[in-house]
């Protein structure tokens, strides 16, 4: 494998990792506040459709992004209503949201565009175009560093850079801000937060809404950045892989970045190669496809480090009378 191939592979890694990382950070906020969310997939899918549809109708990727975030937050609010106010089962609510998005997107796409559950192709400003980082052209000729900067780091669309910036931001919010301290506390010991006079409900709502916003960006990036339209089930289980990545990263932002890059790398390999030769053994492609899931089970089993979820995760909080 030569250097150019490696650069291309890593470039594709960053693109595949972006929606994963967004969804993973989305889940991180929600689960750190004690709300399990297996509806990441559904929120991404809804956002993918509404961003593509509105971007097509308005001709602006940014208005599309806003619509995508809006639809994702709406689903997040349903989840919040069910799991915070009505103390419903958070997992069941997540399952319902996934199905709701899978069905509604195709139904509405058919009603609006009559193209068999797709949106028309987006062109021009309806998509997030790649942007060139400063001096990318000038340094492109420099050996090693040139291609890394000009091809690997430069030339992605804006959501990719926003996503990368979100990792340190999330770390800062979670570990250095008052909101983050309370958020972590409400996921571990909501009764303590309540005793301190801070509203558990408001904190959890904020976390679930942040989760909705990030899933919205993830879906919008898939439909208006990576691809140029919405197609049925286009998120292709990325929401679940993000969930796997979240566990793999043990609910921590920097680890989430690393895990999503790893899983993105697996995606990149999967799309580029037909089979993989490793140390003289030929691995079937399906093995690479299954790897994120298998790794997650291994981590969950606690044989390689232990993944301990937030202590109050999944339990509705009932205020003491």
């Amino acid at each position: 494998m030569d250097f150019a191939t490696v650069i291309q592979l890593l470039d594709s890694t960053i693109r595949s990792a972006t929606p994963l990382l967004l969804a993973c950070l989305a889940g991180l906020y929600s689960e750190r506040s004690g709300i399990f969310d297996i509806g990441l997939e559904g929120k991404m899918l809804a956002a993918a459709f509404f961003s593509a549809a509105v971007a097509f109708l308005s001709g602006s990727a940014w208005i599309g992004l806003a619509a995508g975030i809006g639809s994702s937050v709406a689903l997040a609010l349903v989840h919040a209503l069910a799991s915070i106010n009505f103390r419903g089962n958070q997992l069941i609510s997540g399952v319902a949201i996934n199905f709701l998005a899978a069905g509604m997107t195709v139904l509405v796409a058919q009603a609006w565009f009559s193209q068999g559950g797709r949106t028309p192709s987006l062109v021009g400003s309806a998509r997030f175009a790649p942007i060139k980082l400063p001096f990318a052209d000038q340094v492109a000729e420099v050996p090693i560093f040139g291609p890394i900067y000009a091809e690997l780091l430069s030339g992605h669309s804006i959501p990719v850079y926003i996503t990368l910036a979100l990792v340190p931001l999330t770390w800062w919010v979670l570990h250095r801000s008052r909101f983050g301290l309370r958020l972590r506390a409400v996921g571990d010991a909501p009764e303590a937060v309540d005793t301190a006079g801070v509203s558990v409900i408001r904190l959890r709502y904020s976390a679930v809404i942040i989760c909705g916003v990030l899933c919205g960006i993830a879906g919008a990036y898939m439909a208006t950045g990576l691809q140029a339209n919405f197609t049925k089930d286009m998120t292709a289980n990325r929401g679940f892989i993000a969930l796997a990545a979240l566990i793999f990263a043990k609910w921590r932002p920097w680890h989430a970045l690393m895990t999503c890059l790893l899983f993105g790398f697996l995606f990149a390999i999967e799309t580029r190669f037909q089979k993989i030769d490793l140390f003289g053994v030929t691995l079937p492609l399906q093995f690479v496809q299954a790897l994120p899931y298998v790794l997650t089970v291994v981590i969950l089993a606690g044989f390689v480090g232990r993944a301990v979820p937030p202590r109050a995760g999944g339990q509705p909080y009932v205020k003491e009378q």
Partner: protein
Amino acid sequence: MQKMPAWADAVLVPMISLLLAAILSALVIISIGEDPVAAFRLMVDGALMRSAGWGYTLYYATNFMFTGLAVAVAFHARMFNIGGEGQAMLGGLGVALACLYIPWPHWSVALIGTSLAAMLFGAAWALIPAWLQAKRGSHIVITTIMFNFIAATLLNYLLVNVLRPKGAMDPATARFPETTNLPTFRDMFSTADTVLFRGTPANVSFFIAVFACFLVWLLIWRTRLGYELRAFGQSEPAALYAGIAPARITIIALLISGALAGLMAVNTTQGEAERLILNSTEGAGFIGIAVALMGRSHPLGVFIAAILFGFLYQGGAELALWTTIPRELIVVIQALVILFTGALDNMVRMPLERLFLALRRRES
């Protein structure tokens, strides 16, 4: 003191939830510019008014009974087995291997053999998540989701690289030998002058599903194991004090659940396709969640809910055939049923409980 009479809890709450889901579904149909009354009439016509419609409705219902029971048994032990899809896929593998490699003399013997294979493979696929939940505390929901994906890739690999006959293009096994083909409703119920259930896939495994409903009822409410299962589901510490081993009951509950999900494959793989194809489960494992929630995890409830979902599936296919409403409408209805009967259960329950309390106070 009971807040609500038992009948209200078992019938009234799910009915109101269902009504809410139906109203929202109607609004969805209106919002995409179609007529909900006409759509419903078309669904009833296509699914219930002809024997051919029933042939499909009951075929789908068979699948949903198995997967619904699978979810229900786990629910009784307060566990959420979301892996019915993967367990049913592996059940299909068991059925296919049994059909292809064992020379069965007659379909009835084959049916026993393939049912056992389906249960064995389904249960085996539930074993690792079950063991991890029981011994290592790994959350069953996440592990079974992962195992669904692993099952899909495993089956993809086996069908493309191993089981596909030489020269065949599509990823599927060879056709099963004729001695394994199950009698369909058409074979069973048609008389010399009237052909009933023409060209429909409903087959003898429907009766296995009904029998499974009865067996699960027996298990849950009439056996020691069922009692332990429910006790464990109600309160783990209490069960522990009563001498019930949590790890043992967790594993047993999920093995039964996996076996039931696996059994679904007898219907789809041996009964209908007569070979193992990719995506033979078609999401039935997930519909089991809706069925179990709607049926309140009671076998009779599961039976009724499965027939209702069978009707929705066949009716949805008819809609897609005759109107511009896509099949995904059913997915939306399914989502609304799960949302209202599952996650938003308290939204209906809380006001009803208050109502019944107020009524009782006035009486006394």
